[in-house]
């Protein structure tokens, strides 16, 4: 039987991990990821989860141990955040290039310097090019459900790529919500035991892994990896549909639209700020404003076609970035703009940068974003990139 519990985002991930029955968990503590690894440890130490828990001495070793475990076909989970993610960064392309289906939670947190422990999305943006599937979740339920889905995505024979699930630090990792924990039997049915794959180390046909390939072959390996990651979009959609038909909760695959069909202006969001934006959309809709929302759930592979489909009726698009690519603009803005160029579709797009270092993005901020989009839609000149809630002169 499934049951309801009062969980924060970190705990929800831990329950998702428990239900996914990993063989190995290797982790190093870092705020605000700690509750996840504490909870998983308690499952292991209380005999509720049968897995090898590795107390590693660093994030670099957390990922390296995960690579070792996954390379023999063990279902493997780890979790990190911020500087920890950057410390293990060197290992991430080993995992993706060797086609290892590791699942990792990343608690999105500000980077140095000045550093703090609060949430923004600067950390993950460094690693968009690492070959990992990048998923962003909005609430604790989605965090639990996507943890389970992530193993199925990663281990799918056509994907064979590691998956990173991103949760906004504190706003999501430490906020309690009512969460439904599916039964073990139901999850076992959805996510069968992982049996390894032919390219992994095994007794029947010994393998050499994480090989070197010279300039005669190297590019082909990379192109095939890239092509498979692009194709993963379709599998992500299918797995979400399967999950919905079994558990009654679906998330729209790579993107989810909210009141977007007839919207004149649309805001594109990732992660927990989406929940705040939904409230503002409802409020503005009540005033008769044609505003909508698109929640970007999967940033790698980037869902170009589906994004175009969801925003096709809108005139003006705003992209919320909780990161800055120093010297340019918000990273998601660059990505979304490129999707329009690739598709040959012209739309007015604007970048709203906020939430850096854990600063709130409030309902009023989002209200203002929509107002600005409407002004732009009406032909007024607004800046391409706007910074919200900044207390210094720009």
């Amino acid at each position: 039987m499934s049951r309801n519990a009062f969980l924060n985002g970190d705990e929800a991930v831990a329950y998702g991990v428990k239900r996914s029955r990993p063989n190995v968990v290797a982790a190093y503590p870092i705020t605000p990821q700690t509750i996840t690894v504490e909870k998983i440890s308690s499952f292991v130490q209380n005999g509720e989860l049968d897995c090898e828990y590795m107390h590693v001495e660093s994030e670099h070793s957390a990922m390296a141990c995960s690579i070792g475990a996954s390379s023999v076909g063990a279902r493997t989970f780890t979790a990190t955040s911020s500087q920890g993610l950057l410390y293990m960064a060197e290992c991430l392309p080993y995992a993706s290039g060797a086609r290892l289906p590791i699942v990792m939670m990343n608690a999105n947190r500000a980077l140095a310097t000045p550093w703090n422990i609060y949430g923004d999305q600067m950390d993950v943006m460094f690693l968009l090019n690492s070959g990992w599937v990048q998923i962003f979740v909005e609430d604790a339920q989605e965090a639990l459900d996507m943890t389970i889905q992530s193993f199925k995505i990663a281990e799918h024979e056509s994907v064979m790529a590691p998956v990173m699930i991103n949760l906004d630090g504190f706003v999501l990792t430490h906020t309690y919500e009512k969460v439904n924990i599916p039964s073990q039997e139901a999850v076992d049915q959805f996510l069968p035991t992982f049996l390894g794959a032919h390219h992994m180390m095994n007794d029947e046909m010994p393998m050499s892994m994480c090989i070197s390939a010279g300039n005669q072959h190297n590019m082909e390996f990379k192109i095939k990896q890239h092509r498979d990651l692009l194709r993963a979009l379709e599998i992500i959609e299918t797995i979400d549909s399967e999950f919905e038909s079994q558990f009654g909760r679906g998330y729209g695959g790579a993107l989810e639209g909210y009141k977007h069909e007839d919207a004149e202006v649309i805001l594109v969001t990732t992660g927990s700020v989406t929940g705040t934006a939904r409230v503002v959309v409802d409020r503005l809709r009540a005033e008769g404003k044609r505003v909508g929302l698109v929640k970007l759930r999967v940033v790698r592979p980037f869902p170009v076609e589906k994004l175009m489909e969801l925003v096709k009726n809108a005139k003006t698009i705003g992209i919320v970035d909780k990161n800055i690519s120093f010297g340019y603009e918000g990273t998601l803005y660059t990505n979304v703009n490129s999707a329009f160029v690739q598709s040959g579709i012209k739309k007015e797009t604007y970048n709203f940068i906020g939430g850096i270092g854990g600063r709130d993005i409030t309902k009023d901020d989002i209200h203002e974003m929509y107002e600005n989009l409407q002004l732009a839609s009406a032909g007024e000149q607004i800046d391409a990139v706007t910074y919200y809630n900044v207390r210094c002169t720009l």
Partner: protein
Amino acid sequence: MTINKSIQLNARNITSDEYFYGHKACGGCGESLALRLALKVLGEEAYLSLPAGCMAAVSFIYPNMAFKNNAIITPFASTAAVATGVAAGLKALHKDHLSVAFAGDGGTADIGIQALSGAIDRGEKFIYICTDNEAYMNTGIQKSGLTPFGASTTTTPAGKVIRGNIKPKKNMFEIVAAHGIKYAATASVGYLEDFMNKVQKAKEADGPAYIHVFSPCPTGWGHESDQTIALAKEVVDNGLWYLAEYENGRFRLNKKPDLSNDVRPYLKGQARFRHLKDEDIENIEALRGEKWAQMLAEWQ
């Protein structure tokens, strides 16, 4: 391959099977010899982890794979971490195979020391073999933490003011032993039976085991490729390297050299030491004297 514990391994009873062949190591490479013979003891069921370095560069170039065993290249800093991850994965999947790490001196004593410390501390069974050729050879002979005093490398050249490397080798064997590891040993490719039997002991250890094997590099040291074994013997016989074990919390010396042996023939046989002046050689002898005074006093 199963080896009866009571039999001492030697050239007559070691398997003629090969697990590491067709690789591109230089002629006279001490490190590849250590790997080849260790694998004869470990057998084909051992899962191997090696960092990017000489041994990876000579054996994992697509499409030519030189290991008969399962093997994985690790991020440079993480040989021991990957190897223990492999061990954890195998254990979780109820597969009873050894996980064995091979890394050079830089991969062990410098960039990999943190991961090695963590791995030994976790206490799970795995074997780590450090093939020490006393510099970063794959990148072109740069100084590592295990480069000996006086050696000329491309980052410690024999300059007009500073003549080669000014620091003695890190005490890697003792650093490892300080973890209270189940079994640790030093070895040399000059004494291969000793090395093979230490690998066998590592295999039987009930927990992490570490072997530090002295492995000459003709390319990096500037000696003839047929002198590898002779130099690796001589360095033990003149006391500049030592054969020892750490077991059940105690150190033991396996061989006591004659410390009156002249170190000059060993040093002068290698281009990396040719620039040394008498005062440098006296310093090398003094370092040897200090080390042996400590070992003889504490490790009996």
